[in-house]
């Protein structure tokens, strides 16, 4: 009975905390979760999870350390305050986003791992903080982020402006790095799930089962931390932590060829409850193409319209905080059935590709092709390229052509590489003419690395990170510049400053180039063979040059030899 009194004591504590929090409304943190399902014309299905924790606190305040963490994970909070981080964006992606088939993603990310951080302007040693931060993050996310060092870190001069609040943008405090080779698997998902307030036990996170998530065409999980407006007047800051997971399930591998998707087919789970710690838990299904393309069941009367990525889309909303969403069976399983052929998808306005041209292992050429599919509007794009030092770029061969005419960029920033110290950085602001293809080419030469610098599998090749194309694309409908509290999360990630255009970031493919590789397989045999050839060749040559020939006397018979022996003793001349 003592134990029961203990339990009774514990159960009164949340109500106490609730009371004390109501006394100080500003310091409460809130959590929202959201899932957006967008059926694609090709029969694939795109699901995007967003988990947002908003907390009004100041990690960077001098003297006062934040010690009471509730929904915000303590590991990330300590990282922010120790390294004076203003903004942190990290993403792990497996697969490549196919813009032409799938449209634009809500949150773009390049293949592999990408990390970019804005530090506070009180930091004196940005490089030192960056190095320690990458090591700490590699422990938190079980990834090899400790391979990020000065040879693959760049400091962009115009790209990657902060996505959060702020005035001054001194690019000395920005660092960007990408690891295109990084593998994403369950060991990265496990710590990511553990950062969520409900873990993977309740709410939308129960759907995150690794066996289904990694059996997909595209899987990307990311963490974005930035300061945002706390309310509509925007007088004070709050810290926002967004954990996003984008996954595209393929029709043939995960869908077994049938154009019919349900939550159970995608995730092998259904939803049974919302996360109790969440203030809002919603599932949005994009029904703009309904009923021509597909039909959705169970039908719901709740509809919502949102302007996202320059287009007005209609969504069916399933609110998980309401019990009637789950129906009789106490579980929600959405079913989407395709009706007939999809027809053509609207072509995305901005699209980019990159490839390596040339032959042999000495030189090559990098081609980056950017497409502007708008029929009559031209718009500028900022192209950022970060090439490792072992591909030595010849910048005098850089050409930018649009519609087979030279197109001079209005801004070029080039930082040459230093062998084994820093990579190339090329940033250009290019004006894309309407309905055109712009090609950027630059020649390079492959370097021969020292034999210890090769990876254990050098014949696989070396990766070059994706190029980043940032642009303000003209929008088809007026974008919403007002910030409202109940805006869905997927439409409020990128801040909108003007109505006529929206900001988009497109990543190209990473490149895989072969460097001239020595033959590591048979050093002993090679040494033996080489030594033998050298010995035989040199030895023969030496003999030819230095050997002298002498005529040899024929040998005497035994009797004459004995006689010679006696004659020698007597001291008399010998017989021949």
């Amino acid at each position, binding site marked *: 009975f*003592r134990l029961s009194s*203990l339990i009774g004591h*514990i159960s009164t*504590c949340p109500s106490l905390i609730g009371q*004390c*929090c109501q006394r*100080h409304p500003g*310091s409460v943190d809130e959590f929202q979760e959201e899932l957006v399902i967008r059926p694609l014309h090709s029969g694939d299905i795109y699901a995007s999870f967003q988990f947002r924790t908003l907390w009004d606190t*100041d990690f960077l305040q001098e003297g*006062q350390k934040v*010690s*009471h963490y509730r929904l915000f994970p303590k590991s990330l909070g300590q990282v922010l305050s120790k390294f004076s981080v203003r903004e942190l964006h990290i993403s792990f992606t497996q697969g490549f986003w196919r813009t032409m088939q799938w449209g634009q993603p809500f949150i773009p990310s390049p293949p592999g791992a990408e990390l970019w951080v804005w530090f506070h302007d009180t930091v004196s040693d*940005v490089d030192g903080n960056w190095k320690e931060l990458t*090591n*700490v993050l*590699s*422990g938190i996310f*079980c*990834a*090899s982020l400790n*391979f990020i060092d000065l040879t693959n870190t760049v*400091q962009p001069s115009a790209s990657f*402006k*902060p*996505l*959060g*609040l*702020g*005035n001054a943008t001194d690019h*000395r405090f920005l660092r960007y790095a990408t690891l295109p080779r990084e*593998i*994403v*698997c*369950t060991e990265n998902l*496990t710590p990511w799930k553990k950062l969520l307030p409900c873990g993977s036990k309740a709410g939308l996170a129960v759907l995150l089962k*690794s*066996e289904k*998530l990694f*059996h997909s065409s595209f899987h990307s999980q990311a963490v974005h931390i930035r300061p945002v*407006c706390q309310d509509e*007047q*925007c007088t*004070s800051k709050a810290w926002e932590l967004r954990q996003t997971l984008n996954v595209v399930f393929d029709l043939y591998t995960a869908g077994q060829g049938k154009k019919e998707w349900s939550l159970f087919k995608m995730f092998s789970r259904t939803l049974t409850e919302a996360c109790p710690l969440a203030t809002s838990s919603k599932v949005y299904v994009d029904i703009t193409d309904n009923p021509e393309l597909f039909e959705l069941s169970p039908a719901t009367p709740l509809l919502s319209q949102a302007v996202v990525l320059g287009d007005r889309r209609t969504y069916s909303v399933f609110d998980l905080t309401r019990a009637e969403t789950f129906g009789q069976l106490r579980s929600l399983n959405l079913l989407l059935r395709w009706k007939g052929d999809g027809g053509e998808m609207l072509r995305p306005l901005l699209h980019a590709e990159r490839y390596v041209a040339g032959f042999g292992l000495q030189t090559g050429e990098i081609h980056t092709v950017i497409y502007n599919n708008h029929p009559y509007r031209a718009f*500028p794009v*900022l192209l950022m390229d970060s090439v490792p030092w072992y591909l030595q770029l010849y910048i005098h061969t850089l050409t930018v052509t649009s519609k087979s005419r030279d197109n001079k960029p*209005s*801004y*070029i920033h080039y*930082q040459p590489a*230093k062998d084994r*110290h*820093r990579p190339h950085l090329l940033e250009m*602001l290019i004006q894309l003419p309407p309905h055109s293809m712009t090609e950027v080419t630059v020649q390079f030469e492959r370097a021969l690395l020292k034999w210890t610098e090769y*990876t*254990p*599998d050098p014949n696989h090749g070396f990766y070059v990170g994706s190029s980043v194309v940032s*642009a*303000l694309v003209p929008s088809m409908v007026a974008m919403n510049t007002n910030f409202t509290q109940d805006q869905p999360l997927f439409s409020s990630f990128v*801040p909108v400053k003007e109505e006529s255009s929206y900001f988009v970031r497109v990543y190209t493919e990473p490149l895989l180039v072969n460097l001239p590789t020595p033959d*590591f397989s048979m050093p002993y045999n090679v040494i033996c063979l080489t030594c033998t050839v050298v010995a035989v060749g040199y030895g023969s040559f030496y003999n030819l040059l230095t050997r002298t020939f002498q005529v040899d006397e024929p040998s005497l018979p035994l009797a004459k030899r004995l006689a010679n022996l006696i004659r020698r003793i007597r001291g008399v001349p010998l017989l021949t």
Partner: protein
Amino acid sequence: MNYCNLITIFAFINLLVSIPHGYSNYVETKAGQFFSSGHTNNWAVLVCTSRFWFNYRHVANTLSVYRSVKRLGIPDSHIVLMLADDMACNYRNPKPATVFSHKNMELNVYGDDVEVDYRGYEVTVENFLRVLTGRLPPSTPRSKRLLSDDRSNILIYLTGHGGNGFLKFQDSEEISNMELADAFEQMWQKRRYNELLFIIDTCQGASMYERFYSPNLMALASSQVGEDSLSHQPDLGIGVHLMDKYTFYLLEFLEEVHPASQANMNDLFKVCPQSQCVSTPGHRTDLFQRDPGSVLITDFFGSVRKVEITKDTINLTSPVEPPIKRSGSSDIQIESLTYVDQLPVAEIIHQQDCLEANVTRCRRKQQRTRKLNCQVVEKQTA
């Protein structure tokens, strides 16, 4: 009758005297059991040293030991797992995010809750020795460190391709048995372990423990010098061999061990006799102080905590007061904060003009450029 009474009284007094004595004996035996093994925490270092898809079985070996060790109680924070290549999310894997140990995909040893500390190119001889000896760079996170002390029992499991006196790491470097023995000696001198169990599953594995010379080490190997360790069974769906024979039977043995089991090391030595394994497993116990028969399996593979249940009440402290909101913020008139422009085209072009102006100034061309409000362009640090 008096005599009878006397006997009963005498017996009663005897009983009274022996009960507290028996009770103190009970307490002593309990206390003795509590401290018999001498360790207070458990660590595990599990290493797979092979790269490439056809070495799937080495990753499966390591993950099955990881699974058993987690199941018996050692938490992720006390396990350093090093996998030299990724098999679960390898593009050749027909079932992504899974690593199977039994054919027909019966047992997924990768699971849903796995934390790999060193992966891919990070698994090198240098990192392995640094983890063992504790000489890591200061910014290494906790999950990558072996934070053991002199009361830790450590389990070290190595698997991969090996030969007489060496173990190959990732097809490009090797660790020799002398280096390993020296590393253990460093650990002993720095008091980084109480007892250490070393298991190795490679060809000619017994050669790796020949040179050990530090106390409190027990070693097991899957084959003797001159013998090869063989793989167990292929799966035709996945196309590779799934496990090595020794670790397969070791996993079967460990699946029957539960946290309270009393199985001891002698049972472990009997795992996989030559009839099943084809190679002869070996073991070495001469450096170990205790008798192997008295060493429980859970002393190394599990993390068995002895708990004492208390019936006293505990007073919880009062709830934490949240930090007082900064006063004075409501008095000052704050202008509303704004987001930064994502692609400020005009500003970027202005930056270009500033750069060009600086260049012309450097060349001392004395050109009257129009008055630009350029910020002082600091020299960018290299």
